[in-house]
């Protein structure tokens, strides 16, 4: 039976996390000797057949403007109906904000076992075992899904996008749309900035920056790298930076390719939010700062001297 991938989009445009989910689902289908299809909800502003380049055979399009915003209950009902119509028994999501809203509701409706935050393709040699992060990135668990229908959501940035070329057949899917019980009264999208959970590079600052007035140099560095900005918890708690930038155990968990920590000591609760990053760079004046133990590259020194130089060097590299 086919694998069905939920390809979510932001205002009609697909994102890296969707391409990761599509690539993951297509690879899994290949591994199981079956086919993979995608389901898209709401108004799309891109050519849906192009999703075929990530390996899916068909794109089912539920083209109804009721799905232009995410209502977990309506989304789950629609995806469940799509699963039933296509006969899929494995459903793939991205473990992003939309995935966190919808995947578990879908799983419950299908009485499917769910594993969220997968970091690798399932091992299907004996059963269906998914590797996921647990203990906030401090370990992995191999979790077997024992139910006939299975739901997996993958951690952003854990599975690389694999474009094979190819084109998918686009097929409209009519489903019954329920009456929404949730009314959206305001939407606030952060424009112009790179969203933290989707960023390839994150530049983050701690108490070592001394005060909000010093964030200019951090933003310059972030800008030179097209990076998102983040901070440690005390920085957000002191109101130096907005709360949505706080990463760690109690904040946002990020898994970029590169995490640059400036003046952050590297407390275990901070590491819990960033230790899934591929490469970590730490700049701290204290050689004993615990963050160096979790880092790949580091400079022991004063951020106020180093960061402007770093930005210059990066601009040079990029020929700006």
């Amino acid at each position, binding site marked *: 039976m086919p694998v069905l991938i939920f390809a979510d989009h932001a205002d009609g445009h697909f994102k890296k996390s969707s391409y990761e989910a599509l690539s993951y689902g297509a690879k899994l289908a290949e591994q199981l000797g079956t086919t993979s299809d995608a389901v898209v909800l709401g108004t799309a502003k891109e050519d849906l057949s192009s999703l075929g380049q990530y390996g899916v055979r068909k794109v089912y399009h539920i083209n109804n403007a009721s799905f232009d915003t995410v209502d977990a209950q309506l989304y789950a009902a629609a995806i469940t109906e799509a699963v039933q119509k296509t006969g899929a028994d494995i459903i793939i999501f991205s473990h992003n904000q939309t995935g966190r809203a919808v995947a578990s509701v879908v799983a*419950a409706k299908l009485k499917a076992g769910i594993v969220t935050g997968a970091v690798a393709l399932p091992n299907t040699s004996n059963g269906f075992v998914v590797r996921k992060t647990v203990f906030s990135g401090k370990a992995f668990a191999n979790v077997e*899904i024992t139910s006939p229908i299975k739901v997996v959501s993958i951690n952003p940035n854990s599975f690389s996008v694999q474009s094979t070329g190819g084109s998918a057949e686009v097929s409209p899917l009519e489903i019954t749309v329920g009456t929404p019980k949730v*009314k959206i009264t305001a939407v606030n999208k952060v424009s112009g900035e790179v969203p933290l959970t989707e960023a390839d590079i994150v530049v983050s600052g701690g108490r070592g920056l001394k005060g909000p007035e010093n964030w200019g140099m951090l933003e310059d560095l972030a800008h030179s790298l097209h990076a998102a900005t983040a901070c440690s918890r005390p920085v957000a708690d002191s109101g130096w930076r907005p709360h949505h930038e706080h990463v760690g155990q109690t904040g946002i968990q990020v898994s970029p390719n590169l995490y640059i920590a400036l003046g952050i000591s590297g407390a275990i609760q901070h590491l819990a939010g960033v230790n899934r990053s591929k490469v970590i760079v730490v700049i701290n004046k204290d050689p004993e700062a615990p963050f160096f133990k979790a880092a790949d590259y580091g400079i022991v020194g004063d951020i106020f001297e180093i960061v402007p130089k770093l930005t210059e060097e990066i601009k040079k590299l990029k020929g700006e």
Partner: protein
Amino acid sequence: MKILVCISKTPDTTSKIAFKNGNTQFEEAGVQWIINPYDEWYAFVRAIELKEKDPATILHLVTVGTPDADPIIRKALALGGDEAIRINATSDDSYFIAAQIAEVAKSGSYDLILTGKETIDYNASSVGGIIAALLDTPFISLATKLELNGTTATVTREIEGGEEVNEVSLPVVISCQKGVAEQRIPNMRGIMAARTKPLKVVEPAAIDSLTKIVSYELPPAKAGVKLVAADNVGELVRLLHEEARVI
């Protein structure tokens, strides 16, 4: 108004993570247990604040756990709440946990069910959505603000690239994160009062687990940090470009 807050027990954030029995079990020796921070600081504290505004509110806590969860649920009662329910079972499966809570929720007819954003040990972010599906109520994920106005909840929630304000009629299940409430510490009077508050133990309903943990692994140790001299920033950029290939 009847509120149910889902409380789970997790290792303290500084615990050393290790496994035993051929990496099939978490090593609990020496681990300090706490209330999952998202449950305590955000979901539960907000519920206490709502009860303070409207003292007629009935606030219940629920946990799925064996008797070793009692100290945690008692600690929660010390913070506030009228009664706690412990469903006497243990599982790592989100469906099992949520379905047990849904059973309790059905008989309690709660207006508002609050969970944390995720547990800091299993990191599923799934239990709330499953409860909502089983009760056929709306689910609002990743809330950063929550106000009640009669039978309407106004919730700000995190979405891709921003946030959105939702209005929903009760009953509803909401998963809570930072922003929903400010952290607070229990006072001594609360701790004394907690001793007389009821902790009900109920036996689990017959529900199958749909997943099981086969084994654990620790991530491979980092190779060690490569230090670059402070006066040679260009070298760091070269390494990131040529060796790590991340810029």
